[in-house]
């Protein structure tokens, strides 16, 4: 039976190291299966967060061969077996143990975003053409791989001034909703720091739901921020019309 060599990070906030395990490969196997095999046969104390094993709960995020991925959607036959396969925890978040990280910062960012606010006296009828865009954003499973790979968080560790791609997707879903009445452009600019994003598209590259995060969420939101704060012509038009900015 074919075998794969895994180098799995073992440790906690105080430090750790890669530990080598050998795992037999069976057809259809994914990396999470291998981690479960390690748990069952070699290291029962290996900490791995997982739930659905179907790519829908967003729990099993890790870095496989250095790339942020869902371990349950990473098939073994997609990885070269001639070298050890590295499995590391998400780098951008504080480590709890082994492959489990503390992603609670994301939930604190989420609380900054005003929820869906329907217009008064809303007629609850929507046309498909109006909600096509929003439906893409609803596919997000909150795996936080986009947050993990974003260099503003990963390299510059600017958690204080930056919301991250996951929350730009959420804001896009609210801002582009045909029945929502609230503007979040000032929040985007001042608190979620959309100007810090330099659109290098890593978030889009790692999204397991294949949401076009940069093209369909972040850039359209950047354009809305330009409308509101950086376009001198639009500012002049608003002044002439007596309209207030958001």
């Amino acid at each position, binding site marked *: 039976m074919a075998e794969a060599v895994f180098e799995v990070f073992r440790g906690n906030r105080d430090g750790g190291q890669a530990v080598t395990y050998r795992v037999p490969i069976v057809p259809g196997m994914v990396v999470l299966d291998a981690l479960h095999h390690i748990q069952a046969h070699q290291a029962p104390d290996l900490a791995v967060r997982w739930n659905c094993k179907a790519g829908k709960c967003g729990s099993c995020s890790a870095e496989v061969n250095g*790339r942020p991925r869902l371990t349950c959607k990473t098939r073994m036959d997609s990885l070269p077996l001639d070298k050890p396969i590295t499995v590391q925890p998400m780098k951008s978040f504080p480590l709890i143990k082994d492959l489990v990280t503390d992603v609670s910062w994301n939930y604190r960012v989420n609380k900054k975003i005003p929820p869906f606010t329907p217009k008064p006296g809303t007629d609850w009828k929507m046309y498909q053409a109006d909600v096509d865009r929003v439906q893409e954003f609803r596919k997000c499973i909150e795996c936080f791989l986009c947050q993990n*790979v974003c260099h503003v968080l990963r390299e510059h560790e600017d958690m204080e001034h930056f919301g991250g791609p996951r929350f730009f997707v959420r804001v896009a879903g609210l801002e582009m909703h045909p029945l929502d009445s609230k503007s979040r452009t000032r929040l985007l600019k001042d608190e979620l*720091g959309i100007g810090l994003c330099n659109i290098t598209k890593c978030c889009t590259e790692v999204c397991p739901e294949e949401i076009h995060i940069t*093209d369909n969420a972040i850039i359209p939101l950047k354009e809305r921020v330009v409308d509101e704060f950086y376009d001198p012509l639009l500012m002049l038009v608003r002044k002439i019309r007596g309209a207030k900015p958001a």
Partner: protein
Amino acid sequence: MSAGSTTSGQHHLGATMRPDAWWLELIPVIILLGVFGAYATLRALEGRFYEWGPYLSPFYSPLIDAHHRWWPWSPALLILAFPLGFRVTCYYYRKAYYRAFFLDPPACAVAEPSKRRYRGESAFPFILQNLHRYFLYIGFIFLAFLWRDAVRAFVFDGHFGVGVGTVIMLLDVTLLTIYALSCHSLRHLIGGKLDCFSCARFGGSRHTAWSWLTVLNERHMLYAWVSLITVGLTDLYIRLVACGSITDMRLF
């Protein structure tokens, strides 16, 4: 089972657990942008060999003060800032050069040069990227001139004709138009800024236009590169014909 060291704590340029040659994707960007930048600069400074018969180089169009009545330098220097500004502030090129030249980041999940102060596009100079839509507006004026040039390229000494240069100029302006139409800012201005297409004036038409532009926008990177290469080759062809290195072939 055996224990070894981990490299997760490393932080220097290029530190990563990725085993693939991530740097390979930077090389074409560095070469193409570098070669085009050097060639365009030299051609803009050259100030000659930019027209032949009905052909006019896209680097010199619209042609302003060709006879140096008030502008002593190359006419290209009067105009090139605008198409250059459009490309520099383009959402695709921003990704390309932030990665390839600023290494910010060099690739996904690859470490940057060092811990440094980062302000992205929220402070000068990169906050000026927000003016991209103004370069788009000016870009459409330039496209109008380039279409005029392409139509003129069908007229040889007052008679209809088609040369290799005509075909090249037509292809060039077509690709430049597609590149401009696939622009993210245009997609926003046409319909993306609306929350509710069905509630807006001309909402149906704007949704249709937005949908078409979205299809083009999905290949914005491709159009950005192809149009960059064709505009350079168009200028090169006209230069070679104008300086007599090659002869333009008349197709009919």
